[in-house]
């Protein structure tokens, strides 16, 4: 693919190119310097200490950003490979898609301790194990929706373009490069942006964690805040928040905006849309002599070479595939391959399944019953959080969505606020709760709302914006106002969007319960009765049977709520409230 299609011959070196050159070097050096810190020696007794001096914050911020970007690249590769296989092979799809559905409803924070111990064992005397565990946690918060998006994009490729690639005799690699990848880029970028919002949350939660009675603190903004909170250092806490905001803003301006602008050329529709996104960074890069040369002279040649080699390989495999297809041994060969893959899976699953069974062998039925009751408390909290979230976001979202000018201005602002990890605000809210002696059983609901309300707000705004203008005009012509207007026009129109928001928020709330049902300020812990606190405490103690039971029951709750509540409401929304 060509990255920029500007006419490079009219461009020449300008002052901006020197600044850009500096930026390129700074990025390279930064990545090199920061990544060195990832593999320093580490043991349970020799932990990295967090320094609360604000001069350290750029370094910590850099480490956090590096972690999130590594997780992002891994997620991206995972989504493309997984999504591609699921989209292209009908038999693989039957396993991969339900599996993905389950994976995305698992509350991953509950597994954090398990994964950390696993990775520490893989890299015994290095911080790399903990680093990889943290990156893995971030990965699990990013990958699923990106994978779904990529898979859906390939499946919904315009049929004529697919046929064109075939009639033009493109091999599978050329088809991937010219069709599969381009059609999915816009969706992939939007979902990556969403994933980043969630990832900050996991980053903050996974940098400082207690495992087996040990406090592990990876150098990063999340740990900085955790230490500041533990010491009761309000100024340092504020520094951490400001750093976080700056990082989110910078990544939005320097990374996402230019990507969004660039991705516009991959729109499948051939008509020009009225509003085009803009980005000053993109404009600078696009006009830069240096960038064009880096792209054309440094990046393109190796890319061409690699692409050529893969293309030759793809041509060979395609031919083998066609040969198999033409002969009738295809069936037996396919069966053999499938059986081998299944056996590999079973073999891989054997040892974790075995140790899980060993762990929960001694669990009494009563324990499971207790966990179920705790799960019910958490369920009530999740529902309360959704209800309260919906109560304020519906009127506000509709008010914004019905004013196109306002929503155009507010959208980016809300986007920034929404991607701010809510768990970084928790300590401040905790202080308020302690000061006014607020009942934390109810208070933890508000912590949940902090993180999940944005999903609802976004979708309500989108829903209000999509109300057809002629319906709004009809309402004013017929003097339908006040409650009548809400009942007959606004609520039915936003219902499907609201539902999407609620479903996403519900998933987020379950995950958030693990960090929001138990909070600590200095030495005062606030604990709310619930499954989230149960899992958190079990994790801190290293109580494996309880961790497994807690997470399993949470999965059951999440899947049950999905099946019995959300899916039914969704069907209703599809059939009744669908505005064409």
């Amino acid at each position, binding site marked *: *693919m*060509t990255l920029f*299609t500007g*006419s490079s011959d009219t461009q020449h070196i300008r002052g901006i190119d020197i600044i850009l050159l500096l930026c390129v070097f700074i990025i390279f050096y930064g990545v090199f310097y920061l990544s060195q810190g990832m593999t320093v020696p580490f043991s349970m007794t020799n932990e990295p200490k967090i320094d609360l001096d604000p001069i350290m914050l750029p370094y910590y911020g850099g480490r956090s950003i590096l972690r999130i970007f590594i997780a992002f690249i891994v997620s991206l590769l995972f989504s493309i490979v997984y999504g591609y296989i699921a989209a292209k092979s009908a038999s693989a799809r039957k396993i991969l898609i339900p599996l993905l559905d389950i994976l995305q409803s698992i509350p991953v924070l509950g597994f954090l301790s398990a994964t950390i111990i696993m990775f520490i064992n893989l890299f015994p005397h290095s911080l790399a194990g903990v680093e990889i565990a943290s990156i893995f946690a971030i990965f699990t918060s990013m990958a699923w929706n990106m994978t779904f998006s990529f898979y859906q994009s390939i499946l919904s490729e*315009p049929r*004529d*373009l697919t*046929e*064109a690639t*075939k*009639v*033009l*005799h*493109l*091999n599978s690699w*050329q088809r991937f490069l*010219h*069709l599969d990848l*381009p059609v999915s880029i816009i969706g992939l970028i939007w979902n990556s942006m969403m994933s980043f919002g969630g990832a900050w949350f996991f980053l903050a939660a996974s940098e400082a964690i207690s495992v087996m009675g040990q406090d592990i603190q990876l150098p990063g903004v999340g740990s900085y805040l955790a230490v500041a909170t533990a010491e009761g250092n309000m100024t340092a806490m504020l520094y951490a928040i400001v750093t976080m905001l700056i990082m989110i803003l910078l990544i939005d301006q320097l990374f996402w905006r230019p990507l969004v602008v660039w991705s516009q*050329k*991959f*729109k*499948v*529709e*051939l*008509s*020009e849309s009225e509003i085009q996104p803009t980005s000053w960074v993109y404009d600078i890069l696009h006009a830069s002599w240096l960038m064009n040369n880096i792209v054309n002279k440094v990046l393109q040649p190796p890319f061409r070479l690699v692409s050529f080699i893969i293309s030759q390989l793809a041509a060979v495999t395609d031919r083998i595939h*066609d040969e198999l*297809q*033409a002969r009738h041994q295809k069936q037996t060969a396919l069966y053999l391959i499938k059986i081998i893959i299944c056996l590999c899976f079973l073999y891989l699953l054997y040892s974790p399944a075995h140790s899980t069974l060993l762990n929960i062998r001694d669990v009494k039925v009563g324990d499971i019953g207790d966990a179920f009751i705790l799960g019910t408390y958490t369920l009530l909290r999740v529902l309360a959080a959704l209800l309260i979230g919906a109560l304020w976001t519906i009127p506000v979202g509709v008010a914004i969505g019905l004013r196109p000018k306002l929503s155009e201005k507010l959208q980016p602002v809300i986007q920034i606020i929404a991607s701010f990890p809510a768990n970084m605000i928790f300590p401040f809210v905790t202080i308020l709760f302690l000061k006014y002696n607020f009942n934390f059983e109810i208070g933890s609901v508000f912590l949940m709302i902090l993180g999940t309300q944005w999903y609802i707000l976004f979708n309500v705004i989108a829903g209000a914006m999509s109300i057809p203008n002629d319906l709004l005009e009809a309402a004013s012509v017929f003097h339908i106002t006040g409650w009548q207007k809400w009942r007959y026009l606004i609520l039915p129109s936003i219902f499907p969007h609201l539902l999407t928001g609620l479903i996403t928020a519900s998933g987020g709330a379950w995950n958030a319960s693990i960090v929001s049902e138990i909070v600590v300020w200095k030495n005062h812990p606030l604990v709310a009765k619930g499954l989230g606190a149960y899992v958190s405490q079990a994790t801190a103690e290293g109580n494996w049977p309880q961790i497994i039971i807690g997470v399993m029951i949470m999965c059951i709750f999440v899947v049950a709520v999905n099946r019995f509540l959300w899916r039914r409401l969704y069907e209703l929304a599809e059939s009744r409230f669908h505005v064409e």
Partner: protein
Amino acid sequence: MNELLTLTGIGRNFKVKGAEKTAILKDVNISVKEGEFVAILGPSGAGKSTLLRIIAGLISPSAGTVSYLGHPITGVNPGVAMVFQSFALFPWLTILDNVMLGLEGKNMTKQEKEERSMKILDVVGLDGFESAFPKELSGGMRQRVGIGRALVSEPDILLMDEAFSALDVLTAENLRRDLLSLWLEKKIPTKSIILVTHGIEEAVYMADRAIILSTRPATVRENLPIPLPRWRDRKSTEFLSYVDQIYAFMTNPDTAAPADKIKKQVSVPAAEPLGSEPTLLPNVTAGALTGFLEMLADLGGKTDLYKLADRFVMDIEDFFPLVEMSNLLRFSTVSEGDIFLTPAGEAFAKASVLDRKNLFRQHLLDNVPFVRAMVQRLETDSDQKMDIDYFEDQLASSMGDSKAAQQMDLIIGWMRYAELIEYDNVSEQVYFEEP
């Protein structure tokens, strides 16, 4: 002349959800020689596009073989290139890159590819547009890119799938002429062109031979050579008689008229449209039918079909179902490319709104057995209220779920207009209207 392409005994079944198998194509035999321009015509849904995709090797046939230069093909046909109705351009590639994609599979250096693509851009009249993106071009220009991309690999056979029907009248005409002059003056090495179209005039204007398909399952109904000299005059009597003849073939599914009948005007009675096998009912609303019959009455109750289609400014894809519906209800009859209003049709066109409903109801009950059966079944039901699924399943057993749902909607629409039944969309039940 060499035989370029041979189709023998081509059949294609689709597994539709709910039904056993639906045959789209059955025993299609076609051969195309070097130097021929062939048009494939057929009513909407006849399987023209499926046939073209089988020729291209995009779909494999359920029966029969496609041979290119005497060798049966497996997979994509190596000798073809295709032009799509929707252009199928890659929006993220420039015009030049889009055309170069036609050479991507070829073993050439990048420079050679570029030179050849620039040359073909020149041939199709897009000189100077090479660095533009498809969205910057008009529809006609986009299709020129589509044609250029197909021609750049110098295929033996050029397949065109409704290539002109997404364009406005003038642009389409301009492009047709340009393509024809490339072809007639041998400016391109293409050995044969196969054009799928629903435009009868387009076929007569461009092709050396018209292959007319029948409906479901489609088979070759007629193989009509068009030996008119080029360039053809659309107003000439010979031209119009070919157009008239093809109209006759397409509206009268069971009359096999031999090719020498062009000048004769023998009236043949219209065939019974509903046979013992459940046929697809034409997708026409009662309102459209009313408008059609009124217009026909205004024209004196008898006219040439192609003139009527012209007057409506309608595609035959939309026009033929109207004719079919009107014939089905015996409001009109068709013979030899002419349409006549029956007395009932005459009465319908002139009646008041209420009388129209009565006439429509009577004709619907008399001529659509399924409607009659539905009413009878509903009368025998204990509470005279039935799930629509019951009827839909009967349809689905012969035509598959998705077609059955569409047909059921259509039938319910007619029956509601005729005030035969009421329908509750939420409970999906039909019942009799309260008297």
